[in-house]
């Protein structure tokens, strides 16, 4: 038995073994929730729109704060789902949930129908479209990339080059792109970008020791365990420079390097800097599929557009429609470890629900 698997302290009845749970989204939250439930003996179908499970983690190069491999996490989760007997359906995007007589009917565009007694929505998040911050030049200037592009490039090529094929001598990492920004309508903090930026800065320094790396931040929000020590390490060992000030605009120079304008708010002076590469730490937004999932039932968005919980402290996984639960970043931005914990707690909520659901002869 996998030693990472938690023991959920709920007694599974024979009655519950006939219950069917559908999990929408085959990212890590969905996989974890599905495997926990299946391991408790429930029938579980995991629906994924892509050709394989793993979600966005498939694109990530390294995880913070320990530089571990996301591939291993996905692989372990895959093993767990298979071993627990989860029915995995790929290439299927659920666009419709309807509740009839207490049961749910899930359907996609091609009329694939799945029936379930409870649903977990683990639809994940949408990466902020950085072209919306036109003044940063993403999509316009070749050497402005996002943190997601960075992960993909690193995973694919294992190295970081400018578009001209040279090694960057100076890189700027811009925090809060698409987060905490009323100008793009996202006033919330995406929570994981600060630590992602520090992680990527360290990776750059490890790869290119001569390359100077600058992080432009408004606040550093390093809430997680070991996050702040990574920050300390970034400063001490990797000589990453932290500049408190928000990037106002980037301009491309004829040599395709970028001129950045920010204020060094601690010195109180405008700052101008030429860099070879800019990495925008793009935030998390509600998944695009959320609105269609919300349309046909009582599921409601919260003020940021993520799924609303009935109680953000005591019932974070419980949606506004009875019988539909959420897991992971469908609720709000969170890191990988939090997502997995959150998925397990979603599974627990589902089992509690099925146990006590009077309509289905639960007790």
């Amino acid at each position, binding site marked *: 038995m996998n030693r990472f698997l938690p023991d959920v302290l709920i007694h599974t009845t024979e009655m519950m073994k006939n219950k069917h749970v559908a999990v929408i989204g085959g990212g890590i939250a969905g996989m974890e929730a599905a495997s926990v439930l299946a391991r408790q003996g429930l029938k579980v179908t995991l629906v994924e729109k892509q050709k394989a499970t793993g979600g966005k983690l498939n694109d990530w190069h390294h995880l913070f704060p320990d530089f571990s491999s996301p591939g291993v996490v996905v692989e372990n989760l895959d093993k767990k789902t298979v071993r627990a007997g989860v029915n995995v359906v790929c290439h299927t995007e659920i666009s419709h949930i309807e509740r009839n007589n207490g049961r749910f009917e899930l359907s996609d565009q091609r009329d694939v129908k799945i029936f379930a007694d409870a649903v977990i929505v683990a639809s994940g998040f949408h990466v902020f479209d950085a072209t919306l911050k036109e*003044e940063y030049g993403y999509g316009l200037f070749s050497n402005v990339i996002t943190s997601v592009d960075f992960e993909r490039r690193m995973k694919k090529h294992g190295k970081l080059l400018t578009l001209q094929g040279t090694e960057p001598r100076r890189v700027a990492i811009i925090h*809060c792109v698409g987060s*905490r*920004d*009323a*100008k793009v309508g996202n006033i919330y903090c995406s929570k994981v970008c600060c630590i992602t930026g520090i992680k990527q800065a360290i990776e750059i320094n490890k790869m290119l020791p001569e390359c100077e790396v600058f992080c432009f931040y*408004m*606040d550093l929000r390093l809430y997680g365990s070991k996050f702040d020590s990574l920050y300390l390490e970034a400063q001490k060992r990797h000589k990453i420079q932290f500049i*408190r*000030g*928000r*990037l*106002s*605009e980037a301009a491309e120079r004829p040599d395709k390097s970028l001129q950045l*304008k*920010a*204020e*060094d*708010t601690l010195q*109180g*002076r*405008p*700052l101008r800097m030429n860099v070879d590469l800019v990495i925008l730490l793009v935030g998390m937004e509600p998944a695009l599929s959320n609105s269609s999932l919300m349309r046909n039932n009582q599921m409601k968005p919260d003020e940021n557009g993520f799924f609303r919980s009935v109680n953000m402290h005591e019932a974070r996984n419980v949606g506004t429609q009875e019988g539909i639960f959420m897991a992971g970043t469908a609720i709000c931005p969170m890191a990988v470890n939090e997502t997995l914990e959150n998925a397990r707690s979603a599974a627990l909520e589902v089992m509690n629900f099925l146990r006590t659901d009077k309509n289905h002869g639960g007790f």
Partner: protein
Amino acid sequence: MEDFSFLNPGSRQIDFDNFDDRLLLYVLEYEPSFVTCISCGGCTATCSAGNLTNFNVRKIGLWLRRGETEKLSQEIEKCMFCGKCTLVCPRDINIRNVILLIKKRISELKTENQPV
């Protein structure tokens, strides 16, 4: 205590208990959005005037909040009013109006012959 005439340059600490909040209260009354500033400096970085001289919009806001009216009334004359600051502010503060209100209040205080 006896005066020994020691040289004392005077404290430069910000005195939060006694500061001139006339301007601040005025601005907040007519432009409440100002209260949400997080001093990110985006305004200063994008500022057309700040690009040409040492004008600093963020500091204008900071001085306003600290009651440093004297510094502020001189510095604010450099603003060209182009509105870029308002366009980049992540907190949607109506910075142009803040500047206009400051200018208005300062000119009012001056005509009332009050120290600015």
